[in-house]
């Protein structure tokens, strides 16, 4: 289906800005008129990905790099891409394991990727050490107008 709308949001990797990303994607996705639960899940997944970019992608707090959040809508499908050009991940498969965290000192739970996978239909991670990380998340809005209303998964 044709891409019906798109947005790109860029901001410095400062703690607090995950909230800007969450509200912008929420306002963007609202066009699909999701349920409260669907939008809540999308916002949570976006938060996890952006928080990762901020704290893991750019661990040097003094020189925050840029986080780029892109989103687009094709029919009733929302895609959100969160990108940083920071530290990158050496072993993506390991990073995606539940409870795996490299920053237990920050009281990280290691559940970020697991939450994204649970709340989105598809999550792809591309990363290279020293070059950055791109997380691509796809979610079909089942309750969206035109689509048959199926029970939540």
């Amino acid at each position: 289906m044709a891409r019906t709308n798109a947005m790109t949001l860029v901001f410095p990797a400062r703690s607090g800005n995950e909230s800007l990303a969450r509200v912008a994607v929420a306002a963007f996705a609202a066009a699909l008129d999701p349920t409260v639960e669907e939008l809540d899940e999308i916002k949570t997944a976006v938060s996890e990905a952006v928080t990762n970019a901020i704290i893991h992608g750019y661990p040097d707090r003094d020189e925050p790099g840029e986080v780029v959040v892109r989103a687009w809508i094709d029919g009733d499908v929302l895609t959100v891409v969160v990108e940083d050009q920071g530290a990158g991940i050496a072993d993506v498969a390991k990073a995606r394991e539940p409870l795996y965290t490299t920053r237990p000192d920050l009281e990280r739970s290691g559940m970020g990727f697991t939450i994204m996978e649970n709340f989105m239909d598809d999550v792809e991670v591309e990363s290279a050490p020293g070059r950055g990380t791109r997380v691509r998340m796809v979610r079909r809005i089942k309750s969206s107008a035109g689509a048959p209303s199926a029970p939540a998964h």
Partner: protein
Amino acid sequence: IGEIQRFIRDDGTIKVSRALKEAGLRVRRARDELMKSLGREPTIQEVADALGLTPDDVILAQEATRPPASIHETVYE
């Protein structure tokens, strides 16, 4: 939205558009009440605190209750 969901005691299957419109009406009321009690314009944080919402949710709720903009009337006519 999590807060908004608890706020209107909903099981999550309600449409965001409706939930935000209801929250938007409460935002309007809270603002009026705070104007009276404080004797000045409340800040966005004060309105959020009065409703147990985040400022972001207040902003989304206000947007949902915004009267249709002139652009909609003009561009598609």
